Every structure is written in C-alpha cells, then in structure tokens.
C-alpha cells in the first residue's frame, strides 16, 4: 500500500554535495512551508523559554479569579491576557507551557518510531526469510486496527498518562516506517552499487546503514514530518478522551477535555487550546509539504 510512496532516485545521489543548498532552494519556493517553518520555530522558542515568557506559573491558582475572560472582553483584566480557567489559572501561561508537551510528544514519538521502525525495516529487509514474514505479519496486525482505537486500548492497558500515550502512539506508527524502509531496502538490495559494495567486503551493518539507508531518506523524512503532526493530534485526542496526560498537566487536549463543561459559559477555555493544537499541527503540515516538494524530485518537476 505504501509502496507507491517509494521514489528513490539515483539523481539525488549525484548532486549530494549541493543537496542541502538545492533542498533549501526548493523549500523556500514554497511560501506556505516557510510560514510553517517560522511558526514552528516560534513555537519551539516559546516551548524552550516557557518559564521566562509565561507571565504566571501554569499551575498557580488565583482563587479570586475563576473564569476571568480574556482582556478584550468585558470583565477581562491585563493581569490575565487570555483569561483564566475554572480554578483561576492563567490560560496564556498554560497554553505556553502546553507547547512543551505537544512538541515533546511529537519529538519523542518521531525519534522512537523512526529509530525502531527504520532499524527493524532495514534488518528484516536485508535478512529476509522467516523473520521478515513474522515482522511483516505483526505490522499487518497493527494496521488492522484503527490507530486511535489501538492507542486507546494500549493506554487503557498501560494506565492513562502522557508517557503511556507516547508509547502507544509510537507503537501504532511503527508499521509505516518498517514498511517504507523494508520496501526501499528490497528495491536497493540488488542494485549494482550495493552488490559492488558487498563484493568490496563492506559488512552488513555498514551496508545497511551507510550504503542503503541514505538512499531512502527522502520518503522517511516526509513520513517523519507527517508522524510529528499525527502524534500531536493523537495525543490531544487521547487527552480529550481522558486517556492521555492527566490534569493538572497543561497539555492542550487535556485542557480541552477538562474545560469542555464550560463550553457555553466560557468560550476561551475551550476554544484556545483547540486553536493552539490546530495552529501547531497546521504549521508542521505546511513544513511537511515543503519538505516533500523539496525532497521528492518527481513532484518537483510538476
């Protein structure tokens, strides 16, 4: 199914030197991607320096200020720019700190899924045989369940928490990487340059990681960007169903779930975390599109 995404091109190898420059040349053509990148960098900055940027501590309760509206609305105060939630915590500070969790989820999931998935894919693709069959059937089993449902059951098994949500999401993303890498390896394995390298006495591990892997990087990078945004969405959905980060963690999905009951009375506690999720995911997807266009020579031409 994912086989069609494999579009490794020897061309890419030829201009390896200028790879980065050419990548940037194509990437910056795409205005959306550049906007996405800027926004994403801004979020990274906010997440890194949340302690300095946030006007209040995220879990500090101001008992005099339950559900204060944002500053531009009647009843708002400059003390709380985006208002407060049901126990008097500053929304802006919570949203700022929430960026940490979302990025954290994205990064850990991608790192986890890529490292495990790619290694598995390389190994089973290279070795083949019974191991290959076994792993691929295992991936089929994971793919037979809708991803969110599987994550939900895994979290129910492990116990609801952010860590377990991350583990569950990383597991459900495995098959994409394994299949992608394996297919690429199968495609490359018999090519001349690999055979040549093998004859020259290059060991299997070096062959896998140094010779074959670089040739299937492009689709992997695109897939990683996609994983990053789905991971954030899935973590938020789990949080929304009460199976992700637990309160008072200012994770956006959890904030949404916690404040759902105020939807009519205090729009800001419900709308803002959702908006934060949407913007972040959108920025990453814009970037992902840019990456794909810049890395995928086939689409580049069109």
């Amino acid at each position, binding site marked *: 199914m994912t086989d069609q995404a494999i579009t490794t091109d020897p061309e890419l190898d030829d201009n390896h030197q200028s790879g980065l420059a050419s990548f940037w040349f194509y990437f910056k053509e795409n205005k959306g991607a550049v906007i996405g990148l800027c926004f994403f960098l801004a979020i990274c900055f906010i997440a890194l320096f949340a302690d300095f940027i946030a006007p209040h501590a995220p879990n500090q309760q101001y008992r005099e200020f339950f559900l204060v509206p944002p500053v531009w609305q009647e009843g708002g105060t400059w003390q709380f720019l985006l208002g407060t939630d049901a126990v008097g915590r500053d929304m802006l500070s919570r949203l700022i700190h929430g960026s940490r969790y979302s990025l954290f989820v994205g990064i850990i999931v991608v790192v986890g899924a890529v490292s495990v998935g790619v290694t598995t894919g390389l190994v089973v693709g290279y070795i083949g045989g019974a191991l290959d069959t076994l792993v691929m059937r295992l991936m089929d*089993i994971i793919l037979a369940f809708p991803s969110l449902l599987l994550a939900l059951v895994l979290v129910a098994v492990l116990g609801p928490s952010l860590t377990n949500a991350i583990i569950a999401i990383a597991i459900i993303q495995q098959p994409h990487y394994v299949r992608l890498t394996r297919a690429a390896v199968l495609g490359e394995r018999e090519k001349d340059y690999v055979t040549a390298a093998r004859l020259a006495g290059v060991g299997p591990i070096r062959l896998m990681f140094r010779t074959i892997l670089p040739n299937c990087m492009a689709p992997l990078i695109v897939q990683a960007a996609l994983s990053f945004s789905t991971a954030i969405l899935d973590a938020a959905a789990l949080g929304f169903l009460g199976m992700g980060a637990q309160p008072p963690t200012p994770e956006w999905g959890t904030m949404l779930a916690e404040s759902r009951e105020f939807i009519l009375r205090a729009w800001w506690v*419900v*709308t803002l975390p959702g908006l934060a999720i949407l913007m972040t995911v*959108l920025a990453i997807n814009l970037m992902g*599109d840019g990456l794909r266009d810049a890395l995928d020579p086939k689409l580049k031409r069109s």
Partner: protein
Amino acid sequence: MFGFLLKRFGLLIPTFLGVTLAAFSFVRILPGDPVLLMAGERGVSPERHAQLLEQFGFDRPLYVQYFDYLFSALSGDLGQSLVTKKPVWDEFFTLFPATFELSICAIIFALVIGLPIGMLAAIKRGTWFDQSLMGAALVGYSMPIFWWGLLLIILFSGTLGWTPVSGRISLLYYFPNVTGFMLVDSFLSGQKGAFSSALSHLILPTIVLGTIPLAVIARQTRSAMLEVLNEDYVRTARAKGLSAARVVGVHALRNAMIPVITTIGLQVGVLMAGAILTETIFSWPGIGKWLIDSISRRDYPSVQGGLLMIAVIIMFVNLVVDLLYGLINPRIRHKG
C-alpha cells in the same frame, strides 16, 4: 488472477489469528475488572469476587480461554456482554448500521466536495485559487476533530439553531427498525418529514467525520491529476486541440482515479478512529461510543468482540481495495 486471490487470502489467515490473539490478550491485561466496577463504592467481598470471576470463566488457564474464544469466534459467537448480558454479536450489529450510515455519508460528503476541489486546484495550478483551496484542505487535514465538532454544535445548533443537537432523528417519529439505517427506515416508514429529520440530524456529524477524508481526497486528487496532466498522452490530446474539459474529464480523471480509490480504501481506518470521537461528541449510538464505554466498564467480551469485528472489517476492505487495484492495474499482480 486466481493465484493472486489465493495468495492474498493466504496472507489474511495469519493476520486474522494475530488479530484474535491481540484482541484477546489486550483485554486480559487491562487493569481492574468488571466485577469491581459494577460494585462501585459498595464494594464486593473477596469470596464473592472470586465466585463471580469463576462464573465469567476468567479463572481457567489463559490458553484454554483463548482457544475457546477463537473457536466460538469462528462460529460467530463472540460471547456475552458482562453488562447487558446480551450476545456481543447482537450488540455489535444493532449498533453497526449507525456507524456505517455515518461513515458512508462522510465518505460521500468527502468525495462530492473533495474530488471537484482537487480537480479544480490541479487545473488552476499555481493560482491564488489553487493555493487557497489547498490551504483550506491543509487546515482540514490538521483539524482536531473533537474540537471541530464542539465548535460546530455551538455555532449551528446553539447560536443559529439550524441543525438539531444530537441523536439520529427527531423523537416525534417512531417506526420499526427494518434495516437499521435511519435514512432508509425513515423513507420506508412513509411518515411525513421523517426523512428530512433524519437527514438534518446527519449533517453535523457527517461534516465532522468527513473533514479529514475530504482534505486527504482533495490533496490526493490534485496531485494525481497533476501527474496525469503531465503525461505524454494528455499533452498530445491537448496539442491535438481537444477541449480542456474533455481532456480533464475523460482522459485525466480516469487515470487519476487509481490512486484516489486506494486513498478512499485507506480512509476506512481513519473513519473508524474518527467515529470514536464523532460519536462521543454527538451521542451517536454507534460502535465507536459503544467501544469507549465498554473499555471504561471493562466489559471484556464486548471490547474483545468489538476490536475483532472492526479489525476484520478493515482487513476485508483492504482486501477489496487491493483486488480492485489489481483489476485496474494488472502490473501489481505480478509484483505482489
């Protein structure tokens, strides 16, 4: 072709066994148990607890339970819900039509809007029109749908009062459940207004569930079209002076449909995941909400049966998509 079919089926058997094993073992390692949950604050004595677990058959060795489960599952017996005491099979098929109806509507919605958007964007490639359509599609693709649903309810049902808030049909209408599909049943009932009531209840959930497939289809259609439009035969057709509409409509679209069909097939899993969230928000009596409830009640047979049935449905759809793909594009058959 027959060999290909046989091979595909052969692959399904180990996957099916794996799926039953997965569903079975997930449920066994869930912390907590239904007896404790049902007893609530009142509690249950340790002796009675043991007695009830025995009654449910949870005290036998795991492998015995598994094989027992596997063989009954093969004969269509998924056990009995611990909560309602009804067969899980019956429960699943009472609720399935609601989810199916919603999913079909969502896919139709996604196709009816997504295909033209993708085509138009491809034809007008590079213009502001293309960019704004694709921008909107990307927003849809990035949407946290649980939040989207809440917003739509507030706006359309709350503030504007245009659509009903939840449920499948106005309660004024009451007719027998013939097919389980509200649109069909309401039509068959012949009651005035029933059909439009059922339709109006479907609008918001359809939009919410259809948003992501819509975005995916629009994007996929656009890139497939672009690819086809670049092919030599289309260029030739154009050069021969065939009208743009004819080129696009007849030649390009047909070839662009192949990847789009695959995409639609792949959306089934996405729809099921989306159904869990959509049904939760709209109180839609389907299997998504049922599964969530069953998990939180630790209703083992229901969770187990539900997981298994959904996996089987997804496997089946993937098989059909593969076969279709093989039919349209014979090259695949030999590659497999």
